[in-house]
């Protein structure tokens, strides 16, 4: 039996089939990057249109590749938010139709929970069992947060420990990359150039933000403004060597803030009530960054913590992680008529923000 995952929250259309033990049988992704490249970012209406073009061929292909039939699908998980509302609605509507027609329950998955659990998906075979408690660092183009996840005794409690006060870390990568003339998405380009350069914090003195009230929140907008200032002053776009050093320093400054917050959070969490977290998961698009993956492993060895890194194919948006999060939330699976899409949706806090209308539904 399978759980079907559907993801259409941003610019990737994805469909996945997982076994009940979390084994990924099939994870198909149709990326729209090329379609949005001329605009320097994701255009919501184009994203929505592309999702509808690709979703149904992907659904049929996923079943074909897995050799599965519809009556072997027992649950559907769909990203209900956060994301681009028009894009989300394509996946949600399709999931509602499938679930209603098949008479199987539908789980509305929070996209961030998809990322949060993704490091526990295996390259092959069953998923890695979730530890009783772990920290999950979710860093992408839209999100930058560290979560405290407790799964002990059949619970599923997720507490958001920090967030970004302004830009997300991946967004900072992309915006600065765009400013120095690198193509979208800029994160991988900065990493590539940084490998050829040398971090020079004297030449490029990027600020590390500190809040008065000793908050562990992230803030990347100061770094972004600083980066754009130095890039302009040193004309780094015109000189390959300077650009490489600039990228290396900029990337280093972003990660320095990440680890400085993680250090503080780790010290606090070790003093909290048991169970003691023994694993740290790193997730989201920025978790594909090779330099960060190396530094995260080193941090784990230093602190005697197991570090879980997602397969690179599970870092960017994908439906396998949505189906996997759906498995964790299986108890909440229900009536497809009641599912809504949410452009904003929080993890760990009040579950849903910005509720606007009541559905027309008879209690069944």
């Amino acid at each position, binding site marked *: 039996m399978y759980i079907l995952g559907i993801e259409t929250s941003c610019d990737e259309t994805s469909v996945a089939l997982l076994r009940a033990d979390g084994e990924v049988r099939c994870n198909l992704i149709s990326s729209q990057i090329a379609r949005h490249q001329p605009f320097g970012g994701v255009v919501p209406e184009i994203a929505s249109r592309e999702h509808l073009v690709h979703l149904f061929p992907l*659904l049929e292909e996923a079943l074909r590749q897995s050799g599965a039939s519809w009556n072997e699908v027992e649950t559907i998980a769909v990203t209900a938010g956060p994301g681009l509302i028009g894009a989300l609605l394509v996946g949600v509507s399709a999931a509602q139709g499938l679930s209603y027609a098949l008479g199987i329950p539908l789980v509305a998955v929070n996209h961030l929970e998809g990322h949060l659990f993704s490091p526990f998906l295996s390259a092959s075979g069953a998923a890695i069992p979730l530890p009783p408690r772990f920290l999950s660092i979710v860093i992408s183009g839209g999100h930058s947060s560290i979560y405290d996840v407790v799964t002990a005794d059949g619970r599923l409690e997720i507490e958001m420990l920090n967030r970004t006060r302004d830009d997300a870390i991946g967004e900072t990568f992309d915006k600065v990359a765009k400013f120095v003339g690198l193509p979208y998405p800029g994160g991988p380009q900065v990493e590539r150039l940084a490998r050829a350069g040398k971090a020079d914090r004297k030449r490029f003195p990027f600020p590390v933000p500190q809040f008065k009230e000793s908050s562990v929140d992230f803030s990347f907008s100061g770094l972004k403004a600083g980066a754009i200032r130095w890039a302009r002053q040193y004309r780094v776009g015109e000189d390959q060597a300077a650009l490489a050093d600039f990228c290396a320093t900029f990337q280093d400054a972003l990660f320095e803030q990440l680890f400085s917050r993680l250090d503080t959070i780790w010290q606090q969490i070790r003093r909290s009530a048991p169970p003691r977290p023994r694993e740290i998961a790193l997730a989201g698009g920025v978790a594909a960054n090779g330099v960060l993956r190396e530094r995260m492993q080193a941090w784990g060895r230093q602190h005697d913590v197991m570090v879980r890194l997602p397969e690179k194919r599970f870092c960017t948006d994908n439906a396998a992680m949505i189906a996997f999060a759906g498995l964790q939330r299986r108890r909440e699976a229900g009536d497809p008529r009641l599912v809504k899409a949410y452009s904003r949706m929080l993890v760990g806090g009040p579950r849903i923000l910005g509720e606007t209308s009541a559905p027309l539904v008879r209690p069944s």
Partner: protein
Amino acid sequence: MLILAADTSLPILSVALTDGAMLIAAVALEGRNSRNEKLLPAVDWVLAEQGVDRHAIELFAITRGPGSFTGVRIGLATFQALALALGRTVCSIPTHEALAFHGEDLEFSFVYDDAGRGEFYGSTFAPDVSDPARLLTRAELQSAIAANRSTSVAAFMADRNVAVRTALRAAAIARADRLSIYRDATPIYVRLAEAEVKLAQKKDD
């Protein structure tokens, strides 16, 4: 032949169930927002009320615009999903074509709708001929209305059920053995995304 039809492209959301050309049940409700929260409940209400099992539906008919971009996508995604899971066919009908249908075939007529921003969607029909919808200025609209027997989508919607007409059109298409022509479930947007228009203008300058 049991046909389930719906329209989510227009501000009034409608769902209809017919047996061929015979109407069994229909519902219409306000549908400007949250259409995905209304469509399945409406479908379920129509089926449950008549005691019709979803497996008994033989054909799914859905409009594909022009109209609300999001609405068109919700209708097409939901109905394609229903048909896919139940192993049935979808008959995707241009919204204006459903309205141009009378008796057994399309009639000579011009169907138009407000497209916002001072522009209009218009489609011209003749028996057996369905012209793709185009974007018209107010002046173009007025001359088209003067030259044709015309139907305003808003006026039609005010006293008739678009999904019923969609189901009847689908029944005629099925009878004429032309369902294969109506497999194309591509939305009729007519307009490009705003960003594409701006990018094209930039290139022109």
